[in-house]
């Protein structure tokens, strides 16, 4: 085979020359110049067809940049031209070339090694990103399969455990049906329930007296219900029949302001168990408090005595619900009874007989079985129940969040979450990715348990032994980290503020102890004609010992002011100011409720003063007055 005459194409030309040579269509396509077109160069070289085809095939397969292809093409062309010039046959040259595919591959690899460092860096970046994306996709897929293919393992029915006790109470001993009847019979509060003063002498007092008289049947039913041994409320997530009427908007109180029932599929989900008894008990306490004041006004000690005892029994009924909010209501009702009793002792010291006072004192001392501590057991159960429903179970205490968890935030706090189908779908798509950051079931449970355990230890301590709110501060510090907030967000949604709950029991205990002491002081006065000079005179005949001041662990503070007793605690500043209330910043001296606000400030616990870590605001300089009552 003879070689075709060679017509080498000039390939070194200026940019302007190449632009001028480039057809407009090629320019529009982004091709700068035919000079960079390797195949045209091959065609122009005039090689035998077999060699031209071989060269074009190889450079096409290299998938290199145009400039690189052109370089390779020129070199191969020169090689073949040299071979032809040396007398070799085209077919022999083609045969000795080797495997074109292999050649293209090796040329491509070698040429790319010659590329600029910037291109290599970009390639490395691209590959790294690609590897990361691939890794993320694999992790996402694995997580998605684990999350979306596993069913929850409901190993423990907490609702059934909670309901075992009330279901065992005979029908004839159940207070709840009577409470419910009392609530359904109760009319609308004058001016609204939230605005009821419950005190004689206030503007709404005549209307409240009229309201109590009009609702005498409810009053009687509340007293009758309180006399029953057990509340016997059976937990459910969906109220039925008469109970549902309490939640029916437009019905008589307490249903009017009660929220609509949330739609909960699982009837045993303790997080959504309903507690209509608590607002009913609070309503009953309001009603009986007004009735007791009215009884005092009309000098009817038996009626007032019955009301106080009923309120104390309601506190025990609230505590029977065994949930944190039930304990908090129980403490609130107990304190309400103390406030009522303390006010009656002050305003109507002769109202009750000594026997009635002793009986009331004994009943008051045994509310909650003698302790007013708020229990956290229910929170453990609620959290564990949430975990078993919203997390997968690997059989060893660990697991991943399930899609249902996303609905929890909406159900707990429906006002602030995106409830739209699109938002829900996005959240479900993001869940596998989020689960790689979120704490697993074991970690979340351990963190929650640690928080509750620490809170339990703190709640066991009297106020005078509490150095700081370690559990709460620890949780708050953890929440300041955005990563921890994402990692443990179910914890931050569900964990209640147990620091304050733990202190409320202490406040109530101090109030109860002071009320009992005031009651005994009245008994002493009746016996001796005057109040004692110190509380030590009450022991051991009247009191086994002087109750402690919850803020310093020393005996409750007592003085006679103008012959009248004053019971107080040193308060949050842990300093005896002789029974003086602290100043209230930014409140005028003649502002209404100023004394009440000052007393509240003196009561609210804060860590003890520490010279090394002074508090951001000075502690209120004054005492917490316990008796006589401060409105």
């Amino acid at each position, binding site marked *: 085979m003879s070689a075709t005459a060679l017509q080498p194409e000039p390939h070194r030309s200026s940019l302007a020359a190449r632009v001028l040579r480039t057809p407009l269509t090629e320019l529009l396509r982004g091709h700068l110049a035919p000079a960079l077109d390797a195949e045209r160069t091959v065609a122009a070289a005039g090689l035998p067809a077999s060699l031209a085809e071989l060269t074009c095939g190889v450079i096409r397969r290299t998938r290199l940049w145009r400039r690189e292809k052109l370089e390779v093409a020129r070199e191969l062309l*020169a090689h073949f031209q*040299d071979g032809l010039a040396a007398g070799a046959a085209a077919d022999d040259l083609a045969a000795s070339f*080797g495997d074109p595919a292999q050649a293209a591959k090796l040329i491509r690899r070698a040429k790319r090694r010659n590329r600029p460092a910037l291109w290599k860096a970009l390639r490395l970046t691209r590959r790294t990103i690609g590897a990361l994306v691939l890794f993320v996709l694999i992790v996402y897929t694995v997580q998605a399969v684990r999350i979306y293919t596993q069913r929850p393992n409901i190993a423990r029915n907490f609702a059934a455990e909670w309901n075992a006790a009330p279901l065992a109470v005979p029908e004839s001993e159940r207070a709840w049906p009577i409470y419910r009847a009392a609530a359904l019979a109760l009319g609308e509060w004058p001016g609204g329930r939230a605005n009821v003063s419950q005190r004689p002498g206030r503007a709404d007092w005549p209307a409240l007296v009229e309201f109590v008289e009009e609702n005498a049947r409810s009053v009687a039913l509340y007293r009758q219900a309180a006399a029953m041994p057990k509340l016997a409320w059976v937990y459910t997530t969906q109220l039925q029949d008469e109970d549902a009427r309490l939640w029916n908007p437009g019905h008589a109180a307490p249903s009017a302001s009660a929220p609509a029932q949330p739609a909960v599929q699982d009837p045993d989900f303790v997080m959504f168990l309903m507690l209509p008894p608590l607002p009913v008990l609070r309503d009953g306490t309001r009603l009986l408090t007004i009735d007791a004041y009215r009884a005092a006004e009309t000098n009817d000690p038996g009626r007032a005595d019955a009301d106080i005892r009923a309120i104390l029994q309601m506190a025990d009924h609230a505590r029977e619900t065994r949930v944190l909010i039930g304990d908090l209501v129980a403490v609130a009702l107990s304190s309400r009874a103390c406030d009522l009793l303390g006010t009656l002792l002050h305003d109507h010291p002769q109202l009750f007989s000594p026997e009635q006072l002793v009986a009331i004192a004994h009943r008051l001392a045994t509310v909650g079985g003698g302790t007013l501590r708020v229990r956290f057991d229910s929170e453990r159960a609620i959290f564990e129940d949430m975990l078993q429903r919203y997390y997968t179970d690997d059989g060893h205490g660990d697991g991943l969040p399930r899609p249902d968890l996303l609905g929890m935030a909406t159900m707990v706090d429906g006002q602030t979450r995106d409830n739209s189908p699109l938002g829900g779908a996005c959240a479900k798509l993001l869940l596998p990715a989020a689960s790689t950051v979120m704490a697993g079931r074991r970690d979340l449970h351990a963190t929650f348990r640690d928080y509750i355990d620490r809170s339990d230890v703190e709640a066991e301590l009297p106020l005078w032994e509490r150095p700081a709110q370690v559990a709460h501060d620890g949780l708050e510090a953890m929440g300041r980290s955005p990563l921890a907030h994402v990692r443990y967000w179910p914890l931050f949604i569900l964990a209640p503020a147990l620091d304050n709950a733990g202190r409320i029991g202490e406040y109530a205990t101090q109030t109860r102890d002071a009320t009992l002491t005031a009651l005994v002081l009245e008994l002493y006065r009746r016996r001796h004609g005057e109040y004692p000079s110190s509380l030590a005179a009450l022991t051991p005949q009247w009191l086994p010992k002087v109750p402690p001041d919850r803020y310093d662990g020393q005996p409750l503070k007592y003085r006679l002011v103008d012959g009248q007793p004053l019971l107080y605690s040193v308060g949050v500043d842990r300093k005896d100011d002789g029974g003086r209330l602290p100043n209230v910043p930014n409140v005028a001296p003649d502002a209404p409720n100023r004394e009440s606000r000052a007393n509240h400030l003196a009561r609210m616990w804060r860590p003890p003063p520490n010279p090394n870590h002074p508090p951001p605001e000075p502690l209120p300089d004054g005492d917490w007055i316990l008796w006589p009552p401060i409105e």
Partner: protein
Amino acid sequence: MRIERELMRGAGPVAVLKLLERREMYGYELVEALSKRSDGVLAMGQSTLYPMLYNLEAKGFIESTERTAPSGRERKYYHLTRSGRTQLAEQTGQWLAIARAMQTLGILPGPTAGWEAAS
């Protein structure tokens, strides 16, 4: 004689470097020289030679310049760099060590061949 691919992969680059030690050469010239001077043992086609040249160029052992040959054709000439000379020296040393070892083992003829008989 056909050389194993792995062996060729080791021998080819050093052979090319050796050919370029004395003067610059272009692709076809290298193919011809390798074939003739090794009696065809190290003959390689373009599919092997040019990727090898590009690799040596990427490593900085050789450099290329495009020039018009006396025949009027555009060619790319390759020449050895300083780094290439160092590399050639190292490779040569290694091949000599291998050759000596082969001689010691009696695989290649040489002054130490036949040690088995001696021992």
